[in-house]
Structure formats: C-alpha cells, structure tokens
C-alpha cells in the first residue's frame, strides 16, 4: 500500500494488483479509456475510487501529484504469469489446460463483441469469457446472460492480478489484427 496524508487526513492507495478488487479494477479500466478526460483528471478520479475525495487535491502541488502517480503506476503484477484456474463459490473455472494459453477463435469473437459494445466491466467480462465452468457445455458457456452473470461474480470475488495479464494478451492480439488488416 502507498500511505499518504493530505490536509491532515490519512489515506492508502494500493500498489499491488492483488490488493485491488476486480470490481474496482473494472472502474479503473473504464476511467482510463475515457478519451475526453485529461491525464491528471483520470488519476484523480481513480484515486477517488480508493477513498481520496477530489477536493483534497486543491492545495497539493503538481510535483507531488506526479510523484504519487509514478508511485501508483509501479503496480506490482507479473504480466507473464497467467492464472489458469479460479474457484468462486465452490465452482471451478478453467482458462486453459496444459502449459500454454492460446486464445480460441470463438473467445476472440466474444471479446471483440464486448469491446464493440463497450461493456462497463470489460476486464471481468474477458475473464468470464475465457474461464469456463467445468460443468457446463460449450453452448451453455457462450450464452450471453451466463457470461454477464459470471462477470459480476468474478468482479466481486477476484482481484486485478488475474485480469491484467489477460488484458495484456488481448491488447497484443488486437494490435496484431490491426497490423495484418
């Protein structure tokens, strides 16, 4: 955690992805995608998510804010480690078997759909697409309402360190598709 005092009040910001609930990370992701919001404003909105009121920054210098943003961005997550299985409410969900993760074409289609629809909880939604309930058939897995429900479940029970590596892979895949188009 990053601990700081502003105007006599103590606050804490997470700097480890394991400390961030996926529900909060969904909101962070959504703020980061807002094109009409400036650089500083994005971070102040993110900090507000973690309990630091907007008005606390009124008297804080630009240098101090920049320092804090840099510290916050050193968030600890190993992007190369992919979690292949999670358990939520006694149900097990698996993203891949074996040593290596490879996207399924069908999953890429669902991820593209979610991106085009600009779903609110994109990181959790991606995990809901990729992590499949071991007890369901393929048809059942891809029902939209099932994916939506699972995304909500994951948002409340998982942390950002599971989503970030997959988000990174999705970004790389998107870039590859654009370059080959």
């Amino acid at each position: 955690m990053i601990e700081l005092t502003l105007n006599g009040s103590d606050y804490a910001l997470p700097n480890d992805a394991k400390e961030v609930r996926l529900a909060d990370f969904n909101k962070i992701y959504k703020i980061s995608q807002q094109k009409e919001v400036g650089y500083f404003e994005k971070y102040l909105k993110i900090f507000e998510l973690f309990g630091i009121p907007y008005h606390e920054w009124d008297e804080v210098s630009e240098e101090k804010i920049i320092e804090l943003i840099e510290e916050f961005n050193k968030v600890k997550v190993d992007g190369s480690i992919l979690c292949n299985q999670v358990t939520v409410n006694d149900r097990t969900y698996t993203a891949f078997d074996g040593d290596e993760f490879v996207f399924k074409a069908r999953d890429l289609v669902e991820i593209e759909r979610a991106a085009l629809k600009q779903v609110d909880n994109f990181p959790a939604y991606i995990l809901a697409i990729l992590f499949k309930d071991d007890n369901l058939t393929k048809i059942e897995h891809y029902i939209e309402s099932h994916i939506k429900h699972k995304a909500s479940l994951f948002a409340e029970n998982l942390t950002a360190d599971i989503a970030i590596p997959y988000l990174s892979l999705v970004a790389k895949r998107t870039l590859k598709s654009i370059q080959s188009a």
Partner: protein
Amino acid sequence: MTWDDVSVEEFIELTELQQEDLTPTERQLESIAIISGEDTDDLTEVELDELIKEYSWININPKSDANLPRFEKLSLGSIISLEKFVTEKAPLLNMDKVCALLYERGDFQTDVEYIRNQPVPEYYKATEGYLTYRKKLLDNYDDLFLNDSEEEEEEPEPQDTVQTRWAWMRLVYDLCDGDITKANAVLDLPHLMVLNWLTMVKDLKLNQPVRSVSDTF
C-alpha cells in the same frame, strides 16, 4: 484454393456477410467456413491465423479472362429486368439473376440454378462489366428519363420514387401508344435501337403537334 473453386452461390453468401453486423474475427471465420466447408467453431488463435493467411486471396476481387457478354445486344425487356435486379439490392447479391439475363440460354429459373453452381470469376466479371455499361447508358440517355418540366430547369428536382421506378416502363408505354398488346413486340427490340429512336423523336420534336400547315414548311 482460389476463386475458381468458389461457386456463384457461395460468393453471394460471402457478399451477404458484409451486410451483417459481425465482428472482424467473426466475419473471417464465417467467410472461411463458407468457402472451405470447415467447422470453424473450435479453432485456436494459431489455427485461425493460418487459415486467414491461406485464404487471404478472398480479399482480392475475382479475375477472369472470359469475354464479356455483348451488352449492346440486350433487348429492352432484358434491360428493364436487369434494372430491377441491380437496384432492388446490392447488385452482387443478385449476381445469379443478373447473369441469367446476360447469358440468356432458355428458361430464366433454370439458368439461375445453373449459374449458382458455376465458378464465380466469369460471372463476377460479367456483373461488374454490366454495371459499368449501365452507368454509361444512363449517362448517355439521361435526358430520356427527365420529364419536360425538369428539362427547362437548370437544376432539376430529384425525381420522385414513383417516376423513377416507372421510368423504363414509361418508355414502353410511349412506344406502344398505351396499347399493352404491343408491349411484347417493343420489349423484344434491341434496347439501343429503342433509346436512339426515342432520342431522335425528342431532338427533332417529332412527337409535338403541328400548330398550322405553315409550321411544316
């Protein structure tokens, strides 16, 4: 595999895909499934990329060395029928019907069925070739489709849809003098002969009544 292995029917299905609300990857998967007949449901990313590379030729239009049909020989009736098929939806979606009229062999429905099963390149070329011919035709004879009041204005008002829809049949009506029993004979005439005839009538004002004997000399 090349376009020579793709039938007109499959090409029409591919064209229909362009109109559907699909994601880019979905469109690629559906296109490959139509052409290859493969089940693309369980493909991995790696397999998909290989197939996209293998079928990258579908991003280039079909080409053919076949000769184009002789568009100028088409009857007026064929031109009017073609007009329906190239305007009711995207022309390539009606490629089978358009080519059945361009390559008229006999019964229309039989021709359509035959063409749907043929390799697409020759028929794609014929359809695109006809669209180019049609544009030149409409440009060269556009004044035949304007009514008299529109001719006098510098910038004519857009024709209402009723007038536009019936413009060709209006020509037939004028040539028949409104006598429907003569329509078939007119429709069998070569379209260029009819259009040139009508242009002559319009240019020489041959259809306007003579006011007095002195106007004739």
